[in-house]
C-alpha cells in the first residue's frame, strides 16, 4: 500500500532537488539560520553536511581605517594579541602573572615617556629604564604557557588556524571537526571576554619582522607608499601594518583600550558553516558567546577623503623589475553602482580574453600580465585599480599609455552584448568558486552582513550583475576615470646605464 506520507515526502524531495538545480543557490540561502543574541551579537549558521567538519569565524567590524595618526597598526596588533590566550588559557597562575604584567606596563610607560622627551633624555637614564623594562619582561615569562591557545586548537584537529586584518575588518577564522563545536564556542567566547595581552612587546618585535618581510619586495614598498599618496586625509592612506615608529611606540594600555572599544558583542558577528545542526548549536552559542559584554556599537566615523583635485604620481626606483598601477577613487561597497564597477573590472581585466589581456598582453606584447582590482577599501570610498607587469625590455610608461587607451575606449564605445553575456557567465562561475567551500561561505556571509547590513545581499550579487547595462558602464567610466581622480604608481628598475667608459 502506498502511504500518503511517503508520497508527500517523495514530492518534497523532488521539489527540493529541483530548487537545488534551478540557479543552484536558493537552497543555500534558505538554509541560513540567523539570530541576534541578547548581548547584541549577530550569529549566522549555515548547515552543510558534505564532511564532518565546520568553519567558525568571528568578525569584528573594525580595521586599519579606524586607527588614528600616531597609533597606526593597532588593529593588526590586537589581532596578534588575540592568540596569546586568556585569564585561564596560556598561563600557569594568572593572579601572579597579572601583577607581573602590570609591572611591565609601568616600566614601558616610564621608558616611553623618557624616549619621547625633547630635549633628549640622557643615555644613562634610558639605559636604566630599558634594563628595568627588560627585567620586568623576564620576570613575567615563567608564568606563560606559550602558544597554548594555538596548541589546543591544533591538537583538537584544526588545520587552518588563522586571522587577518584589513582596512575594514578583523576576522578570526578556523575549521574543526564537527564534534568540537563546543570547543570553538568555549575558546572564542573566552578569548573575546577575557583576553590577556601577554608577551605584548615580544609580539611587537614579531610584527616588525612581518613589516620588514613586506618591505623586502619592491611591490610591497610601492603599495605602502602608494596608498599614502592616493589618500591625503582618509585613513586608507595608512597601510594596515602601521608605521615602524608607531609600532615601536604603542603600549599594551592602548591595545587594551582598542579591545574595549571595538570588541564588544554589539560590534561582533559569529558565523558557522558546515556540519552543524542549528537547532542544537544555537543554545550552545548563546551560552558561551553570551558571556561577551554587550558594550556600545562604536562610531565608524573616519574623516572623509575630499574630492581629489590633481593627478598624483609616485615613482619608485628599485633593482626589481618594473610595474605600474593606476588608481581612481570610487564609492564604497554599498553604493548602488558597485556592481557596475565589478562589471568594468571583469570586462577589462577578468580573463585571458579580457580587453587588457587582449591588448597589452597578446597584441602589443607590452605586459606579462595586466588586470584590474575593484575593492581596495570597501567600507568607505576606496580605489579602483588597473595594473600591469611590463614584459622584459618594456617600460611601465608604455604599459600606462596602453591602459589609458583601453580606458578611453570604455568612455566612448558601449560594451558589446557578447561582452555582457560573458560577464554574466564568468560572474556565475566565480560566485560558485567563492562559495563552494565552508570558509568562503562563512567569510562572505560575515562580510556582507557588516558591509551592507544584510547577509542576503551575498545571494543578490548575480542579479545585480545581470542588471548592468552598457550605458551604466559608459556613465561610470566617464565619471570615474578622469585625470584629476587619478593616482599612478610606478616601479622603475634601478639606475639606467650610467656614462660608462665604452
Amino acid at each position, binding site marked *: 500500500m502506498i502511504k500518503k506520507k511517503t508520497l508527500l515526502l517523495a514530492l518534497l524531495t523532488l521539489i527540493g532537488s529541483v530548487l*537545488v*538545480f534551478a540557479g*543552484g543557490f536558493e537552497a543555500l540561502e534558505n538554509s541560513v539560520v540567523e539570530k541576534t543574541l541578547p548581548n547584541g551579537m549577530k550569529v549566522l549558521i549555515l548547515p552543510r553536511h558534505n*564532511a*564532518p*567538519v565546520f568553519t567558525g569565524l568571528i568578525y569584528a567590524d573594525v580595521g586599519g581605517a579606524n586607527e588614528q595618526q600616531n597609533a597606526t597598526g593597532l588593529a593588526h596588533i590586537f589581532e596578534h594579541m588575540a592568540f596569546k590566550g586568556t585569564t*585561564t588559557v596560556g598561563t600557569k*597562575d594568572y593572579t601572579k602573572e597579572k601583577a607581573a604584567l602590570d609591572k611591565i606596563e609601568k616600566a614601558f610607560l616610564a621608558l616611553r615617556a623618557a624616549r619621547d622627551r625633547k630635549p633628549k633624555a640622557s643615555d644613562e637614564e634610558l639605559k636604566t629604564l630599558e634594563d628595568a623594562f627588560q627585567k620586568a619582561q623576564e620576570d613575567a615569562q615563567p608564568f606563560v604557557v606559550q602558544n597554548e591557545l*594555538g596548541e589546543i586548537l*591544533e*591538537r*583538537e*584537529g584544526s*588545520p587552518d588556524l588563522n586571522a587577518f586584518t584589513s582596512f575594514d575588518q578583523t576576522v578570526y577564522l578556523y575549521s574543526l*571537526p564537527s*564534534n568540537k563545536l*563546543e570547543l570553538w564556542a*568555549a*575558546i572564542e567566547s*573566552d578569548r573575546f571576554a577575557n583576553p590577556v595581552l601577554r608577551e605584548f612587546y615580544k609580539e611587537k*618585535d*614579531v610584527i616588525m*619582522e*612581518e613589516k*620588514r*618581510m613586506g618591505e*623586502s*619586495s619592491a611591490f610591497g614598498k610601492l603599495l605602502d607608499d602608494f596608498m599614502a599618496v592616493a589618500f591625503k586625509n582618509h585613513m586608507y592612506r595608512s597601510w594596515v601594518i602601521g608605521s615602524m615608529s608607531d609600532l615601536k611606540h604603542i603600549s599594551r594600555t592602548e591595545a587594551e583600550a582598542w579591545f574595549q572599544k571595538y570588541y564588544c558583542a554589539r560590534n561582533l558577528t559569529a558565523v558557522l558553516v558546515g*556540519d552543524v545542526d542549528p537547532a542544537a548549536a544555537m543554545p550552545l552559542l548563546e551560552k558561551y558567546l553570551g558571556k561577551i559584554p554587550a558594550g556600545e556599537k562604536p562610531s565608524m566615523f573616519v574623516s572623509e577623503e575630499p574630492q581629489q583635485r590633481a593627478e598624483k604620481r609616485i615613482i619608485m626606483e*628599485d*633593482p*626589481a*623589475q618594473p610595474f605600474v598601477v593606476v588608481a581612481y577613487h570610487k564609492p564604497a561597497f554599498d553604493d548602488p553602482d558597485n556592481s557596475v564597477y565589478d562589471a568594468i573590472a571583469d570586462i577589462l581585466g577578468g*580573463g*585571458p*580574453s*579580457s580587453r587588457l589581456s*587582449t591588448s597589452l598582453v597578446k597584441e602589443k606584447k607590452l605586459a*606579462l600580465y595586466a588586470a584590474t582590482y575593484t575593492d581596495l577599501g570597501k567600507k568607505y570610498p576606496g580605489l579602483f585599480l588597473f595594473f600591469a607587469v*611590463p614584459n*622584459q*625590455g*618594456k617600460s611601465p610608461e608604455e604599459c600606462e599609455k596602453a591602459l589609458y587607451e583601453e580606458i578611453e575606449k570604455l568612455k566612448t564605445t558601449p560594451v558589446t552584448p557578447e561582452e555582457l*553575456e*560573458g560577464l554574466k557567465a*564568468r*560572474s*556565475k*562561475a566565480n560566485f*560558485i568558486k567563492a562559495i563552494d*567551500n*565552508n570558509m568562503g561561505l562563512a567569510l562572505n556571509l560575515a562580510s556582507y552582513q557588516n558591509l551592507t547590513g544584510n547577509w542576503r545581499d551575498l545571494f543578490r550579487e548575480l542579479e545585480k550583475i545581470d542588471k548592468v547595462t552598457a550605458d551604466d558602464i559608459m556613465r561610470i567610466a566617464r565619471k570615474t576615470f578622469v585625470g584629476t581622480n587619478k593616482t599612478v604608481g610606478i616601479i622603475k628598475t*634601478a*639606475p*639606467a646605464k*650610467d*656614462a*660608462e*667608459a*665604452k
Partner: protein
Amino acid sequence: MTKKLICLLLIVFASLGLMAQQQKRAVDQLVYPKLNDIQPPQVVEHQLSNGLTILMVEDRDFPSVNMVALVRGGKIAEPKEKNGLSELLGITLRTGGTTNMNGDDVDKYLDRIGASIDSYSSEGEVTLQSECLKENTDDVIKLFADFLKQPGFTEDKIDLAKTQMRSEISRRNDEPFGVVPRELNKILYGKDSAYARQLEYADLDNLKREDLLGFHKTWFRPDMTYLAVWGDFSAADMKARLEKYFGGWTNQGPKPQVVLPQIPPTSYSVNQIEKSDVEQTFIFMGELGLRYDDPDYAPVYMMSEILGGGFSSRLFKKVRTELGLAYGAGGGMSPAFDHKGMFYFYTSTKPSTTAKALQAMLDEIHKIRGELVTDVELKTAKEGFLNRFAFQFDSTAKLVNRMLIYKFYGYPMDFNQKLRAAVEKVTKEDIQKAAQNYLLPDKLAIVAMGKVKEFDEPLSKFGTVNTLDITIPTGKKVEMADNPQAEGKALELAKKAAKFMGEPALMNLKDIYLDGKVSMEGQEFPYKIYFVFPDKYAQELMFGEMSLKLIINGDKAIVSQGGQTAPLPDSEAGDVRKSMWTEANCVFLLKSIIDGTVKAQYLKEGTFAGQPHELVAANTPQGLFLLFIDKKTGQLSAVRYESMGEKGNEDIVEIYQNVKDVQGLKLPQQVTTNVNNEPKVSNKIWKVKVNSGIASATFEK
C-alpha cells in the same frame, strides 16, 4: 609523620591544587560527542580500451563540472639540450589552441561561457584542467579532449610564451622567498637536475615548434594519461561522453620510458647570497628526505611536525614566540611520490639577528635528535593529525585530486588510510630514531640571503662559506663543446695578438691606470680606470664637481659617491665585470686566454673594416666575447659581445683605434663603441700608466 611523608603529602596536595586550578577551565572539561562518519562520495573508476584511466565523482551541490588530466612526462622527460621545453609546452598547450580552434578563439569562447581551461607542466607530469557551468559540459569536454589529442602550438603563441618566460626570468630574483628555495633545490638535487635546473634566456632561443610537437607525439598518449571528472552529472552519462571524445585517441609507437634523474649525495654546506634591497635575511635550509611511501615516513612526518609544523612547533615557538626574531619560522619534510623529497626549514629575520636565528634553528635540529620529545608534543602532533583527518574529505575537488595522484603514481587508493594507521602507532622512541637516521646535521645545506655586511656575525661561524651568485646571465649561455683543434688555434691567435701588443710586457702586466674622456649623447665626462689584475677594478666618472665610482673588489660590487658607498645592484655589477675583460684593448682577456683561465675557440675567418680578420670566441663568466684579430698584423681590432639594455638585448662592438706605444705596450688612444650597429660612445685616452702600483684603498670606496 616522617619528614619524607610530609614532603610527599605536600607535593601531592600542591599538584592537586594545580590540577584543580587547571580543571576549572572550560576547555579541559569539554566532552565531545562522537564524530559523524565520513561519508566520502563514490569514486567510479573506468578504463577505456586505449588505456586512458578515468575517475568520476558525482557532486550535485553546485551546477558545475570540473576535469583534471595528468599526462606522464613533464620536466623529467625533457631532452637535456632542450631545457625549458616542458615549461614552454605547459604554457602553449593551452594558449596555442587546437587544430580545430586557434588560441584566441578558444579564449573568447571560454570567456563568453564563463569557463576556463588551463595547462601547466611540473616535474613529473603535464596537467590540463577545466571548469565550466553544467550547461556547457559537452562542448567543454570536446575542447578538452582536442587539447590533449591535437594541440595547435601556433608560432605566435610560442613567441608570446617565450616573451613571457623571458620576463619571468628577469623577475626571478625579485621575491626573496622565490630565490632561496630555488637555490637550495639546486644544491640538494644538483643544478642540472630536472628537479632543480633553472631556465636561462639562451635556453629559450633553442626551443622550436617541432620540439613541442615531438614531445607531444612521444608523451601524450592515453595509456599514460589519467583523467578525473567531478560535478553535476551522472556517471553513466559522463562515461558515454568520455568514450565519445576520448575513445578514438590512439597510442602511437612504443611507450616512452620514464627515467628519473639521479640524485647525488650531498654534504654540509653554508651558502650566502648578497642582496641589498631586502629588509630581512631570508634563511632556507634543508637536506634530502624520503619518498611518501617509505616505511619510515610516519615517524619522520611526526618528527617534522613537532619540529617545524604550525603554532605548536619548536621552531615557531623558539624563533618567533620566545625570541621574537621572526614572523614566520618553521618547516617540515616534503615528500615526493616517486623520489626522495626534502627536509626544509625556514625563517626570515632582520640582518642583525641573522646568526642568532640560524643558531637557534640548528640548536632545535640537534635537540630533537638528542632527546625524546615530550608526551605533550607527541600527543599534540598525533592527535592533531588524526583529528584533522576528516579535512581530507571536505571537498570533492580535494578528494578526487588525491585519488588521481595515487592512481598516477601507482599508490593504493586507500594510501591515506594506511598512513593514518601508521601514525597512530608512532612512539616517542620512533621519533627520536627517525630524527637520528634521517635528519643529519652533516648533510644540511644552509642558504642565507640578505645584507651580508649587516649580519650580527659572519656566516663563517657555521662553516666554510660559499658565495652564490644569482646574477641572471644576460649573454648567450655557451656550452663550449671540447674542441682541442679550435682551442689550439685560438691560443695561437691570442699569442699573435699579444705579440702585436707587446710581449713580454703583456704577460708582465699587473696593473693598469687610464685617464681619459668619454663622450655619449652629446655630453662629455672625464674618467679614470684603475685595474689591478685579476679582480680589483674601478671606474671613476666625473660630473662637474661630483665623482661617481663603480668598484669591483673580488666578490664585492659597490658604488661610491663622495665617500658614501652602497652595494651595486647585480645587473649593473655584471656590466662592470664585463668591462674588466675589454678594458684597454682586452688586455686582461688576452692574458687570461694565454694563461688558460679563460677558454677560447677559433671560429672562422671574417672581415672587419674591410680587412680580413680571424674570429676567436672567448667564454667568460660574464658571457661570450668575440675577438677580431687582424689576419696580417695580429692587431686586436675590435671585440663584440651582448649586453642587457633598457629595451632588451644589445649588440656591442668596441673598436680600438690610434694605437700608441706605452711602456712597451701598444694601446689605443681612441675607442669607439657601437650599440646595435650605431656609434654611441667614444673614449679618448690621454694617459696610461702600467704597473704603477695602485693603492688598495682605491677599491674600498
